[in-house]
């Protein structure tokens, strides 16, 4: 177990190294940073001085080493646009994105799994058919459209929910949370539904097909033959066996939720990292882009590690132990 975690951590270091390489190459190949930092009236000489001072004339490996060693301690340099440390700007916006993403993920699991179980158990029921049809809509409509429709309905027409922003936030150390105020929670409703709807339908459909698969197996039939209650058969025996693929997909999707919160954050003017990234692209603010890239890669690496550990918890067959399978006898 410990060996497994160590192995995964070493892999993760490699993954992060390569992402860092890609992020670093942004500095080199996406425009000239000096152009972005100075005005038109700056002379060539001043530009060269600045280039020298920022270390842009040093050899590549040296620059790269400087980049990753400072990134490793959370220093991503100074934003070209805002002239403030990138790490500070990200720390300011990270809580907004993480809260939105986590609430969406919880929402999609808490609703998607029961709906999937229901549609799996009552495959020909009327309600199942309604769920399946509605889920098609969820899968095929683009996120931003749903967001805009909701804004129109709940913010413009009914004026019960705010159309943009996070509402009031409370500071817990450096973390600003919107989960503790009514207006903060209200502001979360529409963005988290918009962001989570696709994953919700995906999880529902996944759980449904897995349930249909598992309910056909011999061990479910044998569980019924032992006279276990429907509840025990469906939730204890069937649902648990659907969990491995669900964990895989949920893990991947959580990464995507965080990474692709960009669109939702734009629609709802949500002050998160996605919006920061969009603005950074518009202004070729490379330090922010590089930092964002690294952050997202880090999230994916962490989530994948957690997913692998969850497999271990759920499926005993994946636990490598001595003394398995005792031949024939």
């Amino acid at each position: 177990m410990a060996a497994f975690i160590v192995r995964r951590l070493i892999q993760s270091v490699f993954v992060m190294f390569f992402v860092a390489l890609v992020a670093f190459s942004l500095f080199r190949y996406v425009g000239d940073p000096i152009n972005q930092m100075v005005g038109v009236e700056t002379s060539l000489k001043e530009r060269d001085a600045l280039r020298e001072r920022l270390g842009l004339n040093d050899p590549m490996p040296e620059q790269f080493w400087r980049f990753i060693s400072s990134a490793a301690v959370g220093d991503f340099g100074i934003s070209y646009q805002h002239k403030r440390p990138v790490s500070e700007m990200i720390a300011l916006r990270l809580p907004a994105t993480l809260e939105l993403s986590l609430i969406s993920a919880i929402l999609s699991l808490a609703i998607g799994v029961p709906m999937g179980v229901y549609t799996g158990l009552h495959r020909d029921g009327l309600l199942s058919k309604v769920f399946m049809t509605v889920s098609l809509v969820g899968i095929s409509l683009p996120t931003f459209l749903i967001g805009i429709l909701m804004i129109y309905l709940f913010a413009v027409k009914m004026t019960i929910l705010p159309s943009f922003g996070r509402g009031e936030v409370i500071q817990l150390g450096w973390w600003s949370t919107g989960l503790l105020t009514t207006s903060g929670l209200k502001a979360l409703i529409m963005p988290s539904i918009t962001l989570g709807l696709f994953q919700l339908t995906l999880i529902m459909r996944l759980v449904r097909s897995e349930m249909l698969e598992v309910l056909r197996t011999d061990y479910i039939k044998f569980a019924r033959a032992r006279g276990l209650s429907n509840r025990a058969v469906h939730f204890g025996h069937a649902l648990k066996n659907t969990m491995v693929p669900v964990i895989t997909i949920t893990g991947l999707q959580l990464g995507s939720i965080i990474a692709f919160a960009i669109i939702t954050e734009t629609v709802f003017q949500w002050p998160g990292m996605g919006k920061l990234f969009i603005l950074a692209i518009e202004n070729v603010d490379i330090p922010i882009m590089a930092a964002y890239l690294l952050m997202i890669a880090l999230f994916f690496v962490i989530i994948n590690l957690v997913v692998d550990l969850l497999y271990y918890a759920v499926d005993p067959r994946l636990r490598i132990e001595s003394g398995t399978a005792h031949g024939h006898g």
Partner: protein
Amino acid sequence: MALLEVHDLVVEFPTRRGVLTAVDEISLHIDEGEVLGVVGESGAGKSMTGNAIIGLLEPPGRIARGEILLDGRRIDNLPYDQMRTIRGKEIGAIFQDPLTSLNPLYTVGEQLVETIQTHTDMTPTQARARALELLIEVGIPAPERRVDQYPHQFSGGMRQRVVIALALCVNPRLIVADEPTTALDVSIQAQIIALLKRLCSEHGTAVMLVTHDMGVIAETADRVAVMYAGRIAEVGPVKQVVKRARHPYTHGLMGSIPVIGHDADRLTQIEGAMPRLTDIPTGCAFNPRCPQATDRCLRDRPEPMPTEDGQVACWLFEKEAAHV
């Protein structure tokens, strides 16, 4: 009164091309503590009959007509939750493939305890003690260690022992064993059959042993029912059916078993194959393959007729039956 009675049971499968009759008016009974072997080729309706008895026909299969009685009480029309209290408690079941009968995500002990607690008021500690007892009874070595292991840590034979322990854990009065050894190595088959036979005679449990293995039947069963194309061809005491089979189909089946010390170049075999459910011939379903078929066999379907110690559904025995 017999422990289990099946009267004129019909199991149907509605399909797009019409209704298929998988089990066609079968009647049989099993007495307390008796082992009834049910043999036949694949698709003869053996497993279907077993599934109907435990109330676990896979949809869209359904019992169309007939009744199943346990202790004289009808159980074929019980609602799911009432049937549930009979399954496991009164009627246990063993299925073909021990590798897939156990839930891979729970330890053997958890599955035993769960079943015991479903049907009794035992505390978790008592149930665990009972689980250990059962593992010893079915011959699993080092049960204290094995009880906390997962199914994948057991071999096929050991898993079938666990399945037997699960089927027997609250002392049911009848066990429906559907091909309990087919998926196992030949060397282990005999052990498992011996175990099942010993446990059931110790506990006085009746067994409906569904198999296509005549050898297993000859060794284990008290009586045999031979099934062909969804119907019963012949029923009788095991000696009678094995040694002096009446129905030409049973004859054919017996002829296909190799006899030790009897030097035959070729085993006899029954020509042709069992008809598909979609085109069962009129008259006797066996007539296309029967060496003794007459015009009457092509025309009229024989119903099971009583003999001195059983039943046979064949026109050849009409006269004999009339004298009983």
